[in-house]
């Protein structure tokens, strides 16, 4: 499990494994790209604001993809935007994570049939780690998605390459 449930042998000493420590550090400071696409971005901003407070999970927005660990695809991905999203994703340093937020970026949402301009799921251009369903998802749902992503990072290995 986590890091802090390891035993305390002395007042200031925590015994743990290097991998667990690094994973704990990474999952506790997931810097996300300040990047929003549509109405889901409003919910994402609400999640970042004081009431839901993304910052308590270490999620803070960064203005450059080169400083980001995660990108939340929050909204409708148009074909025109998909090319830009791919480029932004490629500019992020490894290890990098993607949360697909809402029906549009999961599968095209309400545009699945007649949306001539919409990419039917952002996973057609970049790999997605966590899908958050909803139209748009409430902040609680996005937080749950973040917790799932943290769970995924917590179980990653430094030696074995993750899928």
């Amino acid at each position, binding site marked *: 499990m986590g890091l802090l449930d390891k035993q305390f042998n002395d007042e200031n000493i925590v015994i743990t494994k290097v991998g667990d420590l690094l994973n704990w550090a990474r999952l506790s400071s997931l810097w996300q790209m300040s990047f929003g696409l549509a109405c889901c971005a409003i919910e994402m901003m609400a999640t970042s604001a004081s009431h839901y407070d993304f910052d308590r999970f270490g999620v803070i927005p960064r203005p450059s993809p080169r400083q980001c660990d995660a990108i939340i695809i929050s909204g409708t991905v148009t*074909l*025109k935007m*998909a*090319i830009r999203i791919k480029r932004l994703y490629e500019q992020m340093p490894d290890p990098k994570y993607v949360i697909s937020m809402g029906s549009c970026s999961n*599968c*095209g949402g309400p545009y*699945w*049939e007649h949306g*001539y*301009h919409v*990419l*039917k799921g952002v996973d*057609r*251009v970049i790999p997605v780690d966590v899908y958050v369903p909803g139209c748009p998802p409430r902040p609680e749902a996005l937080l749950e998605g973040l917790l799932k992503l943290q769970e995924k990072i917590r179980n990653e290995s430094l030696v074995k390459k993750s899928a």
Partner: protein
Amino acid sequence: MKNTEEIFNLLKEKFGEAIIELKADQPVEAFITVNPLELDKICKYLAETDELKFDSLMNLSGVDEANGESTKDEEGNLTITGGTLSVFYHLESTSLKHKLTLKVSAPRENAEVTSVSEIWKCADWHEREAYDLIGIKFLNHPDLRRILMPYDWEAGHPLQKDYRNPEYYQGMKVPY
């Protein structure tokens, strides 16, 4: 303040043949159909004459009227030949408090309408949108590029009734 019929008579006197007809018996407001290639002169007159003073273009909408000959191939794909594409202009005079609706129709295969972006600056992007989605070319437009679809979109103009979406765009699958 003038109603559409009074404005129609004024225009008819000034421009003659270029003013095609007045349609007053519509469920919507009355509108005047004019020649698409003389639209810029007519609009300049509407905007600058003291008794009309149409200083605001409230809306500009492109319409695919699909009034040509429709054929369906064995896969059910619609093709329309002939007929017209139209543009509607909703004008308002903010000082004289009157409104006017203009319509122009141009042949579907080569729809050309003179631009009014010199007269009302807001028409610039509206005309780009009508070009992008319906495929109407605006003559003398300063920068007639696509505005919503990607610049390299080659599949046509999406709001035409016989539009077909491509299978792929830049290596991305488009249909669900």
